[in-house]
């Protein structure tokens, strides 16, 4: 058996690196990342499942998987046209990746398996650089297509999260694991509404996810998500993490800052993982309870 020891969601906007004169909002956000860094370090996970989306750095129009998982020993930082947003690399946990991939297939999630030269872009590099850099535990990258339509429904993302929980909790690797989802909140990076931050949307997302009963967010449609701009679809990554945590525990918003210079509503949310929901009472959204 393995144990979930920490779970959190945070934004990953690369535009953070472009803020010339950080103000109070950025300072508060930085403090929240620091709190999260301490929490993850205290929890001492053997690996962290990082849920994020690829921004056309690995995947392209040839094949853009709805869900994919990295199964490598090490991951380099994506170039992203600038040589990468972080001067480091990521250690993987191949045993955990393999176990999770196999278990998720058993649960009905036919993931794309990425054994080769997978690179991790700002969606992982930026948060990880803020959360410990090279001291960050090994990662299991779980990709959700919240980049390019059609995207998975929030209900499906929640179900994936539940399945991740069942698989890893049952894994005989006897590991301590953490979850980190990155992305969002509201942002619109092109065209109509460029630069708009939708505070109401962001606070709705945070309000739903921090409270027990957070599965309610899965009723949201793509249209609901677009209230936060085209790229607010990355909230789907957070919903996977919420699914892992389940409905019964509380969460805490460590920070919310609508950083106009980063063009993004930035949030940091930490979950209480002390209550471990039983599969038989919380399975839902297409994930069947075992006989």
């Amino acid at each position: 058996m393995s144990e979930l020891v920490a779970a959190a969601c945070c934004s990953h906007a690369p535009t953070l690196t472009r803020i010339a004169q950080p103000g109070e909002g950025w300072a508060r956000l930085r403090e929240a990342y620091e709190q999260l860094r301490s929490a993850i370090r205290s929890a001492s996970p053997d690996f962290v499942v990082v849920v994020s989306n690829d921004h056309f750095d690995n995947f392209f129009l040839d094949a853009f998987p709805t869900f994919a998982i990295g199964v490598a020993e090490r991951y380099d930082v994506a170039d992203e046209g600038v040589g990468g947003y972080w001067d480091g690399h990521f250690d993987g946990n191949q045993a955990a990746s393999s176990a999770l991939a196999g278990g998720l297939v058993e649960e009905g999630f036919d993931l794309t398996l990425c054994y080769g030269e997978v690179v991790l872009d700002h969606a992982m590099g930026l948060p990880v650089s803020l959360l410990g850099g090279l001291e960050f535990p090994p990662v299991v990258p779980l990709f959700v297509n919240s980049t390019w339509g059609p995207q998975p429904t929030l209900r499906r993302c929640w179900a994936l999260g539940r399945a991740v929980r069942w698989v890893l909790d049952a894994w005989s690797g006897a590991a301590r694991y953490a979850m980190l989802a990155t992305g969002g909140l509201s942002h619109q990076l092109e065209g109509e509404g460029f630069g708009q931050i939708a505070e109401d949307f962001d606070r709705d997302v945070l309000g739903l996810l921090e409270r027990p009963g957070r599965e309610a967010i899965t009723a949201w449609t793509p249209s609901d998500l677009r209230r936060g701009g085209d790229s607010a679809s990355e909230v789907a990554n957070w919903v996977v993490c919420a699914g892992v945590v389940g409905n019964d525990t509380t969460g805490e918003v460590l920070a919310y800052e609508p950083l106009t210079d980063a063009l993004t509503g930035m949030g940091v949310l930490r979950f209480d993982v002390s209550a471990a929901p039983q599969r038989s009472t919380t399975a839902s959204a297409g994930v069947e309870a075992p006989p």
Partner: protein
Amino acid sequence: MSFYYLCRALFELNDPHRRAAYRADRERFIDGLEALTDDERRILREVDLARMHERGVPIYLIRTLALVHEIGFEEVGVATSGRSRGSDVQPAGAEKA
């Protein structure tokens, strides 16, 4: 189908070797993209971000080209929205650069 190749050209700029080739001789790089239409070659030649947006090129590929040309996110926003930024940005507890 040439839309695919337009996107492919931008995607390849994530490869440092392809990017170096692009920077060394843009005309030659673009001339080598035989599947593109004349309009698509013009779009690339002129770094016409607005037209790329109109064609439906994903923003993250537009971003790659913009970064190669050291064009900031705000300029991408202006180019693709057809108006200046400050006109529609919600003032929100603002970080001011």
